[in-house]
């Protein structure tokens, strides 16, 4: 089903918003009034409803099916969260209202902070980062600021394991660090000896994901933390995989100094087709003085929002106070689950991944399969050898079976990686159907039914898209000529 572009349906006269035409006696625009056309297409409300409902139906969603996406924790998004975030007392509150009129909002921030600090056993939390990568940035800024305060601004190297998310090296580079890569061991985990070998007076710290992107808990994480600290560095932990251990392991007990938490992965705020997220960062005692503005302080019976400070604090990394709408959703989720429920969710997430591993292991090859995985299980493409089917083809064939593809070709440490994270939200029925489909597809691939894979998906709104053409001849906005040409076809 094709849905025309907005600009092919609407025009400059149509509008779905009734407003009075007002008289303006003398304008105060100082001659800066608009002379060029806006060239915006308008739709009446019935047309807009159709356009966006029909477009939406071209999307997969977690409400319609499973996303076995490693590293992206696509879990159920409770609708209570949405309802709470829309209460006028949260949604219709301006960030710069007098503090006396927003005590409920500050209490939400305080309660969320308390939960995060308790779950991680850390000393402080900076709520304001707008997403995970923004949290990484903040965390690394705090590390940089702390070292500069110690007069160690010369530490310009950050250690990053090969298997890290792309945001890790990008963040380090963004702040002017150079990246020193750490190889993984044969079992997919990081060797404390390799870290020790890479440490030195030029090293600011390490960015480590734990559980790591191979789905494994780093068994030497405490030794690694100790080694980094001993060398004068800090331990930044990528918290993307916190869902595996919340309520079960407190990262503070592992020696981390900073860790961002994706509220949209771990605490169920919706992905929304690519955001908004929220990436609060928990900080150790050593980094707490370098938390950015704003932060909260108790003041008698009430709460005070500290927006300015002399001295160590980092400044601010966004206007206002961060993603309040996401705080409300995450706190609602935490209160619903409780501490007991969060721990159970983590255990179920790990149980689900290991169940998939157990059911598929005979057919699929798990390169690090000799040990239990955490909340995600990693396979390589050796089971596809000689079939003419690639990991990509295999993943696209999942679409025809009603599943979102798994994460492919990541982490980079295994060939043709397939990383599968079911999350705790999937029922045994769904897991079994997923495993049945995976096994049936593997049989089909090995039986030589290559066309089913190489031409997949067959049943989706589109066949495979020509990404090369998109990049070589970028068309990044609608041009009227194109519309006319199409209309004439």
């Amino acid at each position, binding site marked *: 089903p*094709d849905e025309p572009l*907005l600009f092919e349906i*609407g025009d*400059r006269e149509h509008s*779905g918003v009734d407003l009075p035409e*007002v008289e*303006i*006696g003398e304008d105060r625009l100082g001659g*800066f*009034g608009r002379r060029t056309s*806006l060239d*915006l*297409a*308008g*739709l009446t409300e019935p047309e*807009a*409803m159709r356009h966006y409902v029909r*477009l939406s139906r*071209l*999307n997969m969603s*977690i409400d319609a099916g499973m996303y076995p996406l490693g590293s992206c924790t696509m879990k159920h998004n409770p609708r209570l969260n949405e309802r709470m975030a829309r209460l006028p*007392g*949260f*949604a*219709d509150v*301006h960030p*710069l*209202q*007098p503090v006396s009129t927003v005590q*409920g*909002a500050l209490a939400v921030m305080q309660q969320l902070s308390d939960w995060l600090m308790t779950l991680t056993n850390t000393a402080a939390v900076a709520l304001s980062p707008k997403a995970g990568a923004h949290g990484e940035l903040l965390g690394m800024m705090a590390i940089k600021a702390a070292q500069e305060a110690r007069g160690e601004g010369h530490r310009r190297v950050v250690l990053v394991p090969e298997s890290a998310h*792309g*945001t890790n090296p990008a963040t380090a*580079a963004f702040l002017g660090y150079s990246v020193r890569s750490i190889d993984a061991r044969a079992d997919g985990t990081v060797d404390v000896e390799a870290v020790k070998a890479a440490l030195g007076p030029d090293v600011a710290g390490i960015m480590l994901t734990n559980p790591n992107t191979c789905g494994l808990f780093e068994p030497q994480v405490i030794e690694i933390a100790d080694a980094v600290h001993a060398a004068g560095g800090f331990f930044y932990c990528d918290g993307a995989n916190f869902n595996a251990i919340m309520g*079960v*392991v407190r990262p503070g007990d592992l020696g981390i100094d900073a860790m961002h938490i994706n509220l949209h992965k771990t605490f169920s705020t919706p*992905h*929304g*087709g*690519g*955001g*908004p997220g929220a990436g609060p960062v928990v900080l150790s005692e050593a980094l707490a003085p370098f938390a950015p*503005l704003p932060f909260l302080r108790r003041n008698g019976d009430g709460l005070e929002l500290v927006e300015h400070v002399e001295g160590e604090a980092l*400044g601010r990394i966004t*206007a*206002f106070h961060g993603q*309040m709408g996401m705080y409300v959703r995450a706190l*609602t989720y935490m209160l619903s689950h409780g501490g007991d429920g969060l*721990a*159970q969710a983590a255990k*179920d997430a790990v*149980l689900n991944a290991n169940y998939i591993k157990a059911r598929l292991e005979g057919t699929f090859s798990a390169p690090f399969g000799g040990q*239990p995985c955490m909340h995600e299980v990693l396979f390589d493409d050796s089971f596809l050898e000689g079939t003419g089917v690639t990991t990509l083809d295999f993943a*696209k064939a999942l679409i025809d079976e009603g599943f*979102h593809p798994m994460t492919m070709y990541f982490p980079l440490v295994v060939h043709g990686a397939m990383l599968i994270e079911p999350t705790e939200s999937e*029922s*045994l029925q769904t897991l079994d159907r997923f495993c049945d489909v995976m096994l049936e597809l593997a049989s089909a691939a090995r039986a030589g039914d290559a066309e089913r894979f190489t031409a997949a998906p067959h049943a989706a709104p589109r066949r495979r898209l020509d*990404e090369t053409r998109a990049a070589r001849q970028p068309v*990044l*906005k609608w041009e009227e000529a194109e519309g006319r040409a199409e209309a004439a076809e």
Partner: protein
Amino acid sequence: MRYLPHSEADRAHMLATIGVADAEALFAAVPPSALQLHALDLPRHSPELSVEAHMRRLAQANHAAGDGPFFLGAGAYRHHVPASVDHLIQRSEWLTAYTPYQPEISQGTLQMLFEFQTQVAHLTGMEVANASMYDGSTATAEAVLMAKRITRRNRVLLSGGLHPQYRDVVRSYLGEDEDLICLSPSPEGQGDILDRLDDRTAAIVIQTPDFFGHLRDLRRAADAAHAIGALLIVVVTEIVSLGLLEAPGALGADIVVAEGQSLGNALNFGGPYVGLLATRKSFVRQMPGRLCGETVDASGRRGFVLTLSTREQHIRREKATSNICTNSGLCALAFSIHLSLLGEAGLVRLARLNHERANTLADGLARLEGVRLLNGTFFNEMTIALPVPAAEVVEALAMRGIIAGLPVSRLLPGDPSVDNLLVLAATELTTDQDISALIEGLREALA
């Protein structure tokens, strides 16, 4: 627990299939010292009705903007969003979809982003726009970094009319940097950044309407910057103003960044919002953030994909233009739907209505004894000088249920010259009664 689908029988069956005795066995790799054996000091799970009651109590402890006359702006504006916008964005297929990395099953999100990019480009008068940033402030910081990459120069001039928190964010992003020149706040719309231009300047950053509400001359700034090889970055915090003001692109802007909250998005105590970033086509490979492009599928049908991702962290890792990954997809959708509903005709009417409301407000304020309006020009926001510190007046009016605006001292503390300044905005939601209540309240507070 209502969000966890397994029964105990399910769990037992799964453990048996895995071949372990209990769930704890799956955590064998965790150092025993770090394994949480006892429950954390947190409340236990709670029924929906109890959680709802708790959250409602917290919500009721806030004064909602709609509870009384309201004149706050300063980078976040209270507008009326049609009910259909929020209804649509709550559709499962929008709300709970993933980032559109698999284009075959993400054409809804991708086509919407393509339309969004087109809308932003048209609105700002630029050639290309990206698929959104976190918000206006971080988009501003990214624009500054982008300008430095493009020009390979280091000096950046921030106008005194730039929102103080935007300035702070740029400072944080750039770190200690003596090449970052922040001009003093310019409540009267005075001060000329152009005097500071030199051939080491990568960019000048000008906000219009500026933080104090003044409209700034972009054409003159663009000409001066271009003459010396620098770029003009224009910041817009009230996107509705572009319904009535000339497009920055038509006046020579090289990069336009904006806060898009005014369209489609609630105040939300400051977030989530949606940052806009638009520029010239020739700069596209230096842009941060996601881009959606048109292409065809294997059957030759038009389709859309994320493209030019060799700029991005998940491909380029440490060589990326930014570390941004998740952006503001759903807020961009809300923006795009609201703007589609308005269309050109509606946006112009909306902008005119905002300006008319602000005129009425300005006229009312100007008649108040002891109050001086600082603005010769404005769109829907303005600054007044009071005879007493503005923060006290705002606090007094808040006690009466009137949110009177922003005391400038809140964002620029320690600068006595701004202590008496108050920034106020009016929108289509500002009624004559609201204005009368404010004027009356000010009169009494100043008496």
